[in-house]
């Protein structure tokens, strides 16, 4: 379970939290803004994950 984002604290906590969720890991990571992740399952298959784009300040047009 590898998570990439701007903050190491966020990346580390999310990697651990996703790992703890077992089969739900990829689905959960998909809800996490600004995260990119790669899940390697126990059978060796992989799921790349791109979370929603992180908008720190939502643009109100």
């Amino acid at each position, binding site marked *: *379970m*590898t*998570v*990439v*984002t*701007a*903050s*190491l*604290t*966020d*990346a*580390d*906590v*999310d*990697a*651990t*939290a*996703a*790992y*703890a*969720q077992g089969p739900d890991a990829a689905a*959960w990571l998909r809800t*996490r803004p600004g995260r990119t992740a790669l899940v*390697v399952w*126990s059978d060796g298959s992989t799921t790349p994950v791109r979370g929603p784009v992180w908008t720190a300040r939502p643009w109100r047009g």
Partner: protein
Amino acid sequence: MSTTATRQRPARSVGHVMGMPISLALRGRHAADDAARAAWAAAMAELRRLDAVFSTHRADSVVSRLGRGELDLADCPPEVAEVLALGEAARRDSGGAFDVYRAGPDGRVVLDPSGVVKGWAAERAAGPPGRWPAPTSASPPAATSSAAPSTRPGRPGWSASRTPPTWAGCSPRCPCARGRWPPRVAPTAASTSSTRAPADRRPRWPR
């Protein structure tokens, strides 16, 4: 166009704290001078101080005493409340899968914020951009990384790194190689949680 600039091999330092190795890789003109050594010493001192606060392996750490009810949160250093808030946010966001409170061997609830602390402490020790010697040459200042394989088989392994954007590259065509720093790229951090790989499949320490 000249392509004579070569990739500099990073100057590496390795220390051991919080039960994990911490490594630092520096590139640039000041990668191995007194300023770099002083910055590395400051980062390790910060990690040792945080270990004394947060270690769950030391009975006299602040977190151990807080967990036993000998201290109030108000009496703890401010970092403790910061870490507990991060843990609470992670518990909420993960629907309870992540929790700094876990059942101990005797069934009682134990405070164990290690899941937050290691990454948080590594990021904190990496510090603000000014911690590492500013490059006067055309090279980026610093990359830090840490890795903490679990010593217990079957327990989740852990590794984390925080790198500036040019960790992998600094090719001759990188903006910083032409004297423009910092490049307009966001800093990136990566963390991996996994079961511990068998010894023969463990990655080698990067060289």
